[in-house]
């Protein structure tokens, strides 16, 4: 799943729908969301992301966030950088796969 633009109150409904769909399609498997082209994620988006991560973890899957420096910094501002599985590129994600 690839997000372009800003995740805030206005775009949250679409983000929620896409996240739900990704979780359902994964069906217990893993989900990666690519936020490298995302310019902003605020508390509304953080909450939805954590909710999706929890559901994927409960199903036994891995939930990874691909984020560049900018989004990584934003996630750090909300102190969720330690609880989300953040990688800096698709290549890094592939390398981390067993």
């Amino acid at each position, binding site marked *: 799943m690839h997000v372009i633009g*800003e995740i*805030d*109150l*206005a775009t*949250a409904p679409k983000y929620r729908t896409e996240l739900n769909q990704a979780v359902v399609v994964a069906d217990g498997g893993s989900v990666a969301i690519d936020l490298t082209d995302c310019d*902003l994620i*605020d*508390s*509304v988006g*953080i*909450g*939805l992301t*954590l*909710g999706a991560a*929890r559901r994927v973890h409960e199903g036994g899957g891995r939930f990874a966030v691909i984020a560049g420096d*900018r989004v990584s*910094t*934003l996630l750090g*501002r*909300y*102190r*969720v950088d330690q*609880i989300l599985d953040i990688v800096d590129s698709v290549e890094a994600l592939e390398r981390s796969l067993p």
Partner: protein
Amino acid sequence: MTDPQTAELEIPAESRFVAAARNFVTEEARSAGWMQESQLDDLRLVVSETVTNALRAHVDRHVDELIKVRSTVFDDRVEISVADSAGGFEVPTDIASLPDPDLRSEGGFGLPLIEALSDEAHFTRTTEGTVVRLVVYRVGHAAS
């Protein structure tokens, strides 16, 4: 020392205007010479959270009034005020004493973020609603 630059924006309590509010404040700072992108990002975030709170208060109480956002840029800081007309809410007396957000829940990230990214955050209840006044010092001009 240049004169402070003040501008106001009034937005309807609709989610699509949150972006307008945060871009408004960021552009005010940028036009006054704030260049550091990471600090402008922080400014965008703190305005986004504050305006989102105001907007939710309006929506919860079915208030149609506009939300007023004012930005005043000084040499060393920007002062932002966000005034809603939602009748006020119970504000924490000491925002620094707020508990960490419950990382298992999907909410509760807004106020701690406002506290973390502003040098001062004042919540004032008026007859009309709540006024949140934030002060953010420019990087390199630390709060004394």
